């Protein structure tokens, strides 16, 4: 049944006024369930915007604690949160921003063992992780469970993102069948990241989640959006769903989840 309190009507009025959102769309948002894996650079803006938008249930997964080096870009965490778990810190901000939102926290690292159970409760997943093994794990688990998700990655001044609707559009493995070899991954020392780039990309991911919930417009499927903030160049590269994809193709070879060995990093994140 539709029911909005006067306060909710006012809080979400700028959504409701939109022809493409309206009462129905806002209701879908309020009934929606989105899981954000990683509340770091990408997850911070996504969590804040989705909470602000009134997404009914938001899950946040992170095994880490807030570190001083995070604060340059992970805007949901404040200096006073140092050494708190990231889930606790994010939970507090989201609840303070919008008490209507139900926030589930998972203070853990997703693994082949636990991920399917966790994502099963949600309508949409946002990948805000910072390493390839996790990105492949999320892709594989979401495809197996049939849950759409937004992939995102950032490095230095650039970012890339794509949305996957399992069964309908290309998955991450359709373009990148295997994780890169260990030595090909830039180490944290070489990497570095301009803080705002994380905000730009995480916000795009949040927009995809909202669009998915309200079923309006078209998603960033079968395409990889990349941008370079130094030149402010945005590019969309077409992708296609491959029949020989080892995961979602006609004769899949990946039939169950496995944890992939993590690339080693000497510096702390």
């Amino acid at each position, binding site marked *: *049944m*539709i029911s*909005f309190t006067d306060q909710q*009507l006012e809080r979400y*009025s700028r959504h*409701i*006024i939109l022809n493409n959102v309206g009462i129905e769309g806002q209701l879908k948002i309020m009934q929606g369930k989105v899981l954000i894996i990683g509340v770091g650079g990408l997850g911070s803006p996504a969590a804040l915007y989705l909470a602000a938008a009134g997404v009914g249930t938001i899950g946040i997964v992170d095994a880490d604690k807030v570190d001083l080096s995070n604060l340059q870009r992970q805007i949901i965490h404040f200096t006073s949160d140092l050494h708190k778990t990231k889930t606790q810190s994010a939970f507090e901000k989201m609840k303070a921003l919008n008490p209507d939102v139900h926030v589930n926290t998972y203070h853990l690292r997703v693994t082949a063992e636990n991920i399917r159970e966790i994502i099963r*409760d949600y309508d949409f997943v946002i990948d805000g992780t910072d390493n390839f093994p996790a990105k492949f794990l999320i892709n594989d688990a979401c495809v197996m469970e049939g849950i759409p998700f937004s992939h995102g990655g950032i490095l230095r001044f650039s970012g890339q993102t794509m949305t996957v609707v399992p069964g309908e559009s290309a998955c991450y493995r359709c373009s990148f069948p295997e994780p890169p070899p260990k030595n090909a991954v830039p180490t944290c020392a070489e990497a570095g990241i301009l803080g705002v780039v994380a905000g730009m990309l995480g916000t795009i991911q949040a927009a995809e989640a909202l669009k998915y919930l309200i079923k309006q417009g078209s998603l960033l499927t079968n395409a990889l959006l990349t941008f370079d903030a130094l030149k402010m160049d945005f590019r969309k590269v077409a992708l296609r769903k491959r029949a020989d994809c080892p995961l979602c193709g006609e004769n899949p070879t990946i039939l169950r989840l496995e944890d992939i060995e993590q690339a080693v990093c000497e510096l702390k994140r």
Partner: protein
Amino acid sequence: MNVYQIPETLPKEIDHLENLIGKFQQGTLNETELKANRVPFGVYEQRQKGTYMVRVRCPGGIITPQQLKAVAEISGKFGSRNLHITTRQEIQIHDVDLNGIVPVIRSLYDVGLSSRGGGGNTIRNIMASWDSGIAHGEIFDVTPYAVALTERFIAESDSWTLPRKFKISFSNSKQDNAFAAVNDLGFIAEIRGGKPGFRVYVAGGMGRSPQVGQLLHDFIPDGEVYLVARAVKVLFDKYGNRKNRHTARLRFLWQKLGREKFIQLYQKEFAEAKNRKLQPLKLKEFENRAREHYDLRPADEKTPEFELWKKRYVRSQKQPGLYAVIIPIQLGILGVNEAIVFAEFAKHFGDNVIRFTPQQNISLRNIPEEYLGNVYRNVRRVTHLADQPFLLGNTIVCAGASTCQLGICRSRDALTALTKKLTDSGIDLDAFADMKVNISGCSNACGQHFLADLGFYGKVGRKNHISYPAYNIVVGAEIGKEEGARFAEKVEEISARNLPEFVAEFLAGYGEKKDSYDSFTSFLQNGGAEEVRSICQRYRPIPDFDEDKNYYFDWGAREVFSLAGRGQGECSAGLFDLIEMDLSEITELKKQLGEVAEEENRAEILYRITLLSSRMLLITRGIEASSDDEVFDAFARHFIQAKLIDSRFGSVIETAKSGKRARLTAIRQEALDLAEAVEALYHSMDDSLRFNTEIEEEKGEQGDETTAAGQEEKPHLIRDYRGVSCPMNFVKTKLDLSMMRKDQILEVLLDDGSPIENVPRSVANEGHEILRQKKIGQYWSVLIRKKA
């Protein structure tokens, strides 16, 4: 582990049902025949045609975690995303389509569950105290009896063809928290001379004519439970009224026969059963103890919320070191995902851990203290009420008029409004943890208002021909008393609009004095009931429709409150309330007629009798007239022209309508005859609101809209947004339109200036049609037709 043994005949019965459904789909079996077989299987058709609800039997509210998970998965596959916990401690799967029914029943059977007897004239789910086996101070665990009696009865074919439903319950102590004393048959544990046994009540029940259970046996040894139950069942089967389902329950048989005759016939059946040397029940124990090993790390939970939660929802068990938790489930609605998450978690603690409570909540038992933190975390994933005061988690409310055919008021929305009011009020609700506040949408007691400390049931109020939603207030139920149960009694009534304010005021008042009384009952007896009356007094009379329309909208409703068009198919209690109200006034007026001397007064009384006679049954045709003349016109059209009432009464109606009331005294007898004719017609009315004399006449519902003379397009909904600034006036208008059906008309009142310049334009941009906008004094009225 399976909780109960299912008879071997069930698979065959399922095959039979499948066969019938197949025939129905091919068109070789009619709907009524299918229904006769479907309902006793616990399969009900929902409001929406072609969708069904399956009710799963859970004696004593027991289900294993594995079974609960399976039920959730079955619902996810064949039904809705939400399960529903009932006040009889069962669980229901909703929105199953015809093809899904048999797969659902088969899948349930695979995990040891059955829906047989969930509905219809059968032995319904047998209840037991939710805390049986673990409660401090209980007499003994009654769970084994509820389960064993279930196993026995579901294997007996006469359990499915009784005159009406038959409800049984077991309580583990005098507290009677399974409400044994208000069931058709209730057993309350007791020990005599060191031997376990029961005090037995019979013929209790709620609904429109409630009766508390009557004492049948002061004490029976536990070995005779089956004999007693069997004897009462046979008695009911033999003598119950099969002709009229409204007077078929066991309590009506008790009333018809009287105590003496009833007991006499019962004793005959009891002796008969005893003679047959039937096997006593085979009891099996349900163990409550800690496991040797837990595959779970205790969660380190130290928040203040956790401590508060423990106070509110955690109870220690009689087994040292173990705890039981109540998990409040709002309205008994449990999401499929939540059910799976919860069931997976509950597995850690064993098989015998879950009970559904009559408050439509879940309880989880046998939890060692160190795992309470884990439970708390899981509970927060399962329910939004985890951090709410117990009073709010423990409230029972029926589905109400938003989904129930019979409902008058939208009880669920009333609860939402009440919850908000109480939460905002700052009243310390934890002080009322032992209080029960229940709400039913009508006089059928699905919301168990009769069992409440403070209960409400929906009724129709009427002011100047206009109906408004209201509630009767009942107070002071006493369950678990030596002298038998007592239902809450009506003391007052209140408009739906003022219900939240009333409760907040009442609780605030009671809260201040609470410590000076030893119980709520003693408060009621010493001025509490008077306080209810005086608060209600202040909320009367309600404003006129033109003064404040809010009173004429129910909570959560987007249309003006009306019973018109409701209750087709099944009797709506609300319709009867209205009819009875007019009827009793007619009777009263007739009495007065003989007592007054002046002709002028007599004319006035006769006019009123004619008016009420004409109005009384209009509601059955879906009509609510708004003036005297409309009443007369509608009556002439729908009753006289439709040949339900003799055409000779046309002249009485004409005379009354002409304004020359004085002339009525000359045709006094005709006016009185009209009243009699209408009353007789009313008594001939059946459950579908059809009259005996009714010929090929159709309800005239379609005719109504087009033929009603001189009526321009009437708005379905009127909203006053004067004083609401941009863009909130537009936002609210959008909300209203979203609730309406296409082509329905909305009237909004808007201020002059930017509201009238912007809102109609924005509405039109979204494709709705602006029928007209009219300036009335300083403001505007805009008529909008919702887009197709």
